[in-house]
């Protein structure tokens, strides 16, 4: 557009120059000679024509100037709109970035429903299925064990928990069909009195060692309990208990304690004969409907433990526990016999892939026919996860090799020893496939070497 304007300006300049030239020529002619009327008129006409053309050009120039001004104004408006558009784009990008930032953050957690804060009911537990092949026997599928723990929390400090065990077995010999047993494993109320004291009441898991309290099927690395735990000490007792833990400094160390009083042991047949010792039957409710302890005094016991973590996955726990009380069914304290037990326990973790634990159990009790009977037993077990070898093989990394030695001498029969070797394959962190072979050294012909495969699930 600027070029066009320049061209028009040049035309005007040339027109004025031509007119001036013609005028000079006319003056020159006058100087040299007289001008005729015809020439004068022709010249006048030419001058008028040129004047008209100049006027036309001026008008054209004015129009073009106006057009140019309009164009400049339009350009200014377009520039203004462009700036506005750019500002809008910047703001839109900022908003988009802010939205993306908000969306990239995790969603805000909704507050926990108040009702579930105040109370909550859950079912925890485990389930096991086994295949067993005993030496000299037919292999068989075995054990449909479903062991739920119903847990009810009332508020922050009260918990009621009850564990059950269901078993499937053949009916009595010469009877058809199968029977299912459903038994209460424990049922206890826990009340957290303060940071250091918890009151427990009911049919409680007894802290004689730690195995009894931490032996659910999927927690134990073997498909059966140590011989000494099953034979020498009670798993539960009906009574009350105080327990707790006290931190030592800020490094994670603490001591834990428990003291309890329970009905204690009793006699299976009411006599004081050694083989009548009943570790778990004195629950207060008699078979005839009466309510009484089967002997004249309750049993008392406790445990003192010390836990020290060196760093995560590296720790040691040791404990000493004991229990004592009358066991036979006489109400005469002078004639009664005393049962007592002492347990040493230890558990060691050396990294996420190695752990070992064990217990030593010593019990003594008086009897009418065998005198003082001393029993003792122990178990030591260890596990190593092959993930510690860093083989970068998923199937291998999920395997844990386990081994156990356990023995028991009940004071009435010869000593029994057992060596167990096996593996655990972690299908998930709660679904385990286990395989073990147990070498038994026992005078009992029914106790023979056997292989056990087990699928266990913790929930």
């Amino acid at each position, binding site marked *: 557009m600027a070029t066009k304007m320049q061209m028009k300006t040049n035309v005007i300049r040339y027109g004025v120059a031509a007119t001036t030239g013609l005028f000079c020529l006319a003056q020159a002619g006058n100087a040299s000679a007289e001008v005729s009327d015809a020439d004068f008129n022709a010249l006048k006409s030419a001058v008028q024509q040129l004047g008209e053309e100049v006027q036309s050009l001026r008008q054209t120039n004015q129009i073009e100037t106006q057009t140019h001004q309009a164009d400049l104004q339009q350009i200014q408006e377009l520039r203004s709109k462009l700036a506005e558009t750019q500002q809008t784009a910047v703001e839109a990008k900022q908003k988009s970035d802010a939205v993306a930032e908000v969306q990239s953050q995790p969603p805000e957690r909704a507050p926990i429903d108040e009702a579930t804060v105040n109370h909550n009911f859950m079912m925890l537990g485990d389930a096991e299925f086994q295949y067993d092949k005993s030496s000299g026997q037919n292999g068989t599928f075995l054990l449909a064990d479903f062991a739920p723990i119903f847990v009810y929390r009332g508020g*922050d400090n009260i918990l009621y928990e009850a564990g059950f065990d269901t078993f499937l077995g053949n009916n009595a010999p010469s009877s058809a069909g199968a029977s299912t047993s459903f038994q209460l494993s424990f049922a206890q109320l826990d009340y957290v*009195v303060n940071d250091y004291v918890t009151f427990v009441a009911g049919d409680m898991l007894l802290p004689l060692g730690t195995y009894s309290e931490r032996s659910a099927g999927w927690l134990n690395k073997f498909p059966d309990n140590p011989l000494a735990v099953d034979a020498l000490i009670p798993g539960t007792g009906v009574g009350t208990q105080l327990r*707790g833990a006290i931190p030592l400094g800020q490094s994670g160390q*603490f001591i834990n304690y428990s003291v309890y009083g329970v009905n204690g042991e009793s006699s299976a047949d009411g006599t004081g004969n050694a083989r009548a010792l009943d570790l778990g039957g004195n629950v207060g409710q008699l078979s005839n409907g009466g309510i009484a302890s089967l002997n004249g005094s309750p049993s008392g016991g*406790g445990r003192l433990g010390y836990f020290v973590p060196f760093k995560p*996955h590296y720790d040691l*726990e040791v404990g000493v526990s004991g229990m004592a009380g009358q066991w036979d069914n006489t109400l005469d304290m002078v004639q009664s016999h005393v049962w007592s037990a002492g347990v040493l326990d230890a558990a060691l973790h050396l990294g996420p892939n190695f752990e070992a634990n064990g217990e030593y159990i010593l019990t003594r009790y008086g009897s009418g026919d065998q005198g003082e009977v001393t029993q003792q037993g122990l178990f030591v077990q260890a596990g190593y996860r092959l993930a510690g070898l860093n083989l970068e093989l998923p199937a291998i990394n999920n395997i844990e090799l386990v081994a156990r030695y356990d023995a028991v001498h009940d004071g009435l029969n010869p000593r029994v020893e057992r060596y167990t070797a096996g593996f655990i394959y972690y299908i998930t962190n709660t679904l385990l496939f286990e395989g073990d072979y147990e070498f038994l050294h026992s005078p009992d012909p029914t106790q023979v070497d056997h292989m056990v495969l087990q699928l266990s699930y913790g929930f």
Partner: protein
Amino acid sequence: MKQIKFNRFSVPAGLAGVISAAWITSLAWLPAHADPPIAGTASTNSVAAAAPAATAVAASESHHLTGAELYSIHCNRCHPERYPTERTGAQWKTIMLHMQVRANIPVQQSKLILKYLQDNSGR
């Protein structure tokens, strides 16, 4: 009236019980459910507040275990670790109360583990 006679195990067991009861009774007077210590701060426990300043400084400079560290320490002692996302916050509260009693975990440590689990829970 029934005459109660004691056997030879009853006396030491009774003494142990009395001593334990006295000790526990003294503990029961401590503040109930004191807040867990927070890293870099002095404890709100009145016992710690009454301690000399030097002790408080030393305590603040020592390393306080976090909930995640305590989770790593305690939660695979008896079984494979359970993932925080497996349960809701309310469920973890119930489970931690159960485990606090069963595994003898100190209340303060249990609270820190619970907070870690709830902060990373399924919902």
